[in-house]
């Protein structure tokens, strides 16, 4: 649920990083936090377990500057990827305006990626949101493993598994090294702000 304040000229949107456990959702947020200036971002809030697995969510607020006369603020959340944290995933999805699906390129994670995407579609539906309509970007993470001795899925395989019907924009990434992190963020921010503006500002200015 985007929030538009005409008085202060501000648009706030909520973007969720979704995907299987240990796929790199938190690493995306950490990279963004580490490489942005502190006057445009807030604190990185993490509720995780001792083993560095996200228990509830990570949260980072970012100021993206102005579009026309409106200051755009995005709030980035991750969900816990592990299967048994479905209740907390649903809580975080509440009011989502845009989604980044972070898929793990490791071949052993192939089923987990598909399972997580199916779980996301179900949870979005429960919140009254449609996976085919909400702004969505797919990120194929851990591409830095290509050429190592760890078996990696090809982009074609991942596209067939996850994006054949959705046809969402996709990015290859290494969240650990930062490759593709800002490309993904730029794209989802653009799609989300465009979607919110279309739905809301046109009405509000009438």
């Amino acid at each position, binding site marked *: *649920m*985007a929030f538009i*304040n005409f008085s202060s000229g501000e648009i706030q949107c909520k973007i969720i990083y979704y995907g299987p456990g240990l796929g790199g959702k938190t690493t995306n947020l950490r990279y963004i936090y580490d490489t942005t200036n502190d006057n445009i971002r807030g604190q990185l809030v993490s509720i995780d377990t001792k083993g560095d697995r996200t228990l509830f969510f990570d949260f980072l607020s970012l100021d993206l500057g102005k579009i026309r006369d409106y200051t755009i603020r995005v709030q980035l959340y991750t969900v816990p990827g592990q299967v048994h944290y479905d209740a907390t995933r649903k809580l975080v999805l*509440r009011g989502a305006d845009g989604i980044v699906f972070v898929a793990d390129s490791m071949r052993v994670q192939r089923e987990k990626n598909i399972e997580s995407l199916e779980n996301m579609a179900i949870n979005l539906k429960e919140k009254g949101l449609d996976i085919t309509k909400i702004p969505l970007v797919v990120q194929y993470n851990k591409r830095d493993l290509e050429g190592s001795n760890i078996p990696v899925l090809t982009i074609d395989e991942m596209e067939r598994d996850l994006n054949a019907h959705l046809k969402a924009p996709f990015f290859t990434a290494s969240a650990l090294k930062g490759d593709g992190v800002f490309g993904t963020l730029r794209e989802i921010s653009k799609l989300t702000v465009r979607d919110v503006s279309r739905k*809301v500002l046109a009405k509000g200015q009438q």
Partner: protein
Amino acid sequence: MNIILSDQDIVRIEKSLDTMLSSSGAHCALLIDRSGQLISSSGDPSTLDVIALSALTAANFGATSEIARLLGEDEFALLFHKGKNENVHFSKIGTEFIMVTLFDDRTTLGLVRLRTEKVVHELRTIFTEIIERNKGE
């Protein structure tokens, strides 16, 4: 659903929050929605990361709602956390909003509860109007 607030809405909300702060002795009040977005604040939140506080409050409320559900309750209408110096009081406003009130030992929980109850009623009326208007647009 998206929420659009006009200048007039913000003035009404801030006025209600200001009145509550001055009558209760609390030093800061935030109004947020259940998805974690900050809508309005009043008082002195200067040393706080209010954006992060909003996200955590919504999560806290969501988690507590699930506890309520497990206990056979619909939802808990208020939450209260007591610290050494700072205390936080959360009140639900309708189904979509939460008011966060911060206070220290210069006032009491009883007074804060009494005054927040009144403002919750006012804000509920304001938000019902806003939601109805948003639906109609």
